[in-house]
């Protein structure tokens, strides 16, 4: 249960809000979390946007841990080993990039297939068709990668 839901239920228990208001607030919280399934994205700039339609951007964010907090002067970091990365790539650019595979000569594709087989992946990259690309990009809408390192640094990959 998220903090927001707890607060709403506490307010209901204290008779600060009615049952109807609590229901509406809980629904709003659920719909806000529906796109990512995690309220933790609010600090990454996604602002709780729902990814129900076509995904527009692929976001990659790396946020440092507590020791890498912003100095507040120009947004630079005091700790030289800790940095922040915030990348937003339009899906149209990814689509164009995938279509660039048609420019790869067959000899290079054979080498790529061979390398994949050596790694245990039995997949022919020549079989990727434009309709597969569209399906793949639409499926990205459900993707969410959230990795937290030992020093508190967070890596998030998601679409918005």
């Amino acid at each position, binding site marked *: 249960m998220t903090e927001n839901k707890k607060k709403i239920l506490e307010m209901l228990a204290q008779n600060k809000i009615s049952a109807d208001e609590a229901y509406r607030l809980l629904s709003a919280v659920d719909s806000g979390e529906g796109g990512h399934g995690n309220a933790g994205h609010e600090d990454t700039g996604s602002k709780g946007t729902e990814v129900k339609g076509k995904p527009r951007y692929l976001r990659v964010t790396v946020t440092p841990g507590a020791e890498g907090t912003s100095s507040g002067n120009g947004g*630079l970091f005091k700790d030289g080993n800790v940095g*922040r990365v915030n*990348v*937003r790539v339009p899906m149209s650019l990814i689509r*164009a990039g995938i279509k*660039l595979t048609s420019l790869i000569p067959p000899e290079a594709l054979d080498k790529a297939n061979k390398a994949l087989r050596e790694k245990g992946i039995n997949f022919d990259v020549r079989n990727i068709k434009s309709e597969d690309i569209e399906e793949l990009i639409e499926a990205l809408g459900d993707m969410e990668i959230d990795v937290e390192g030992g020093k508190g640094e967070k890596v998030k990959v998601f679409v918005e």
Partner: protein
Amino acid sequence: MTRPPMLMHIKVQNQDKKFGLWLPLFLLMPLALVILIILSSLILIAILVLWPSGWGRYALLALKAAFVTFWSTRGLEVDVQNGSQCVYVSIV
């Protein structure tokens, strides 16, 4: 239909210096078009010469791909901060 990129904002900042640039891509596009028209005859000859070897098709597709890729860059945003440096590139 997606709109072409209009502006590119580049910002580089370190502890001593700060550099920012708004690049008007919409002004550079007519210039690129003129250069493309001037070079089109050379490109066509190169494609025709390379066609029997099979590379002509790739050259033609590469031109199209470069155009499509440029057109799709609208909305790209890269913001990297490390140590005392900060690089920000945004295409709008």
